[in-house]
């Protein structure tokens, strides 16, 4: 069987059902779909173990913040790669910011360790079961998560700065 995005998606839906896999599209040729927090670990484990797909490479993980989507403010993107078939997959999990808890996948991919720490550092996502969930790029005692959209960078055109503070 030739592996196309549709075939692979069909196979995943067959296993997990449309309740757990939805909203599939391919914005740039990479099959992208959503799943929920309950199935994410099982799904990634299934893709890893499946002898036909052999999705055994975690390319990257990225957090995204959508402050306007109520109840789905945070998003975690997992991008996987089957080196055997040169097939990339992108999985998204949305969850509320009040409850930013996700299961860890460090037991499947050792490389997820720092990626999850980065997501915790930037977005405050908490990964249950992570061996060492501390900040990675920012200082340990920082009290906020800087990539959240409520922390804007300074506007370059602002005029309320007091010049004497800046030696101007």
């Amino acid at each position, binding site marked *: 069987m030739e592996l196309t995005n549709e075939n692979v998606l069909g196979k995943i839906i067959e296993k997990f059902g449309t309740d757990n896999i939805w909203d599939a599209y391919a914005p740039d040729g990479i099959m992208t779909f959503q799943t929920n927090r309950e199935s994410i670990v099982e799904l990634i484990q299934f893709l890893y173990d499946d002898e036909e797909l052999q999705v055994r490479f975690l390319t990257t993980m990225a957090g995204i913040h959508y402050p306007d989507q109520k109840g789905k403010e945070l998003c975690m993107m997992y991008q996987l790669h089957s080196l055997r078939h040169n097939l990339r997959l992108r999985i998204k999990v949305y969850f509320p910011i009040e409850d930013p808890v996700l299961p860890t996948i460090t037991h499947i991919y*050792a490389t997820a360790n720092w990626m999850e720490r980065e997501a915790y550092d930037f977005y405050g996502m908490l990964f249950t079961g992570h061996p060492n969930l501390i900040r990675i790029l920012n200082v*340990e005692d920082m009290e906020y998560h800087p*990539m959240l959209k409520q922390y804007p960078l300074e506007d370059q055109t602002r005029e309320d700065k007091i010049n004497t503070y800046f030696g101007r």
Partner: protein
Amino acid sequence: MATDNKTVVSDGLQEFRENRELKLQEEENQNLTTLNLGPTHPATHGIFQNILQMDGEKIVSAVSTVGYIHRAFEKIAERRPFYQITPLTDRMNYCSSPINNMGYHMTVEKLLGITVPQRAEYIRVIMMELARIADHLICNSILGVDTGAFTGFLYVFQEREKIYDIYEEVCGARLTTNMGRIGGMERDLTPKAIHMIKEFLKEFPKVFAEFESMFNRNRIFVDRTENVGPITAERALNYGFTGPNLRAAGVDYDVRVMNPYSAYADFDFEIPVGSKGDTYDRFMVRNEEVWQSLRIIEQAINNLPEGSFHADAPHYYLPPKQEVYRNMEALIYHFKIVMGEIDAPKGEVYHAVEGGNGELGFYLISDGGRTPYRLHFRRPCFIYYQAYPEMITGVSLSDAIVILSSMNVIAGELDA
């Protein structure tokens, strides 16, 4: 929500500190010493700290701390118009900035749906391969320095200088190049640049052959590097290794072949692989890649297609300056581009290029505004450097230094 998170943060920190206390106590019981390797140690070639627990000369365990030059590029990128993000990418892997620049441009072009003319693609390939050579030269010659051979380093740095002269001729800058534009190159290759590249192709192989003859079968070098820091293919994949480090472990994954971008599909080249994934294999894979890069450059420069050096995309590509003074449209586009007033279409793209040290990916989400909604860099260093503590557990300190330099970890890219 803020308060909730705050308590969690301090809990985690508390636990972290308690663990550290426990470790210190354990260490006292076992008669181990703690050694701080870094953050500013001449042998780490960058700013990263490793706290080592030593039993005499042997490393018992290691903890890496990174983030010393974190500059929040992903956050800054969310405020900048697309063309202003290129200089940020320069500062990631600063040993091969043209690859970062081109990778970023190609990502944005993918989002905008711009097709770049063949000539521009060929020029890009030439510049990217020169950058790869420069990157590998630094890594391999510094590996030589760390094993006690300073000569090779000085010798190839003169050649690296010539690559930087070519950059200067092509784009005006040397280290942080900001080369090319969204839609192509900012200017065509000058006859002088073509001459310099051809000259480099003629002179460099002799020098590099000498460099190789100095190391490849050198008893001291082989003793210091063979079977040092090996990693199995399976473990390397699990750790997300890419680039020469993965290929040294025997996996022939190269983005240039797997997902050909730019004009790579037109060229004939080979992907060298190692077998053991040790320091010597990593060194040899890089050396061979330099030869393959030379092959690619030679094919590209000899078959350089005629045509334009940039795409016809007036909304995104700056018009020539003399047009701006005479032509109304050009003036408008110039103003809009420079002020960052041009909106990009909505979309989501991932584009990967084979960087100097692995798969350099750009994950870009655009919400239809003037800046990216989210731009995530997949930095190969950041991902594979986490294997370092595992790789140096049980080896001696001097081997740990050699392993670090053979992994080609660039602090700028690691911390982004």
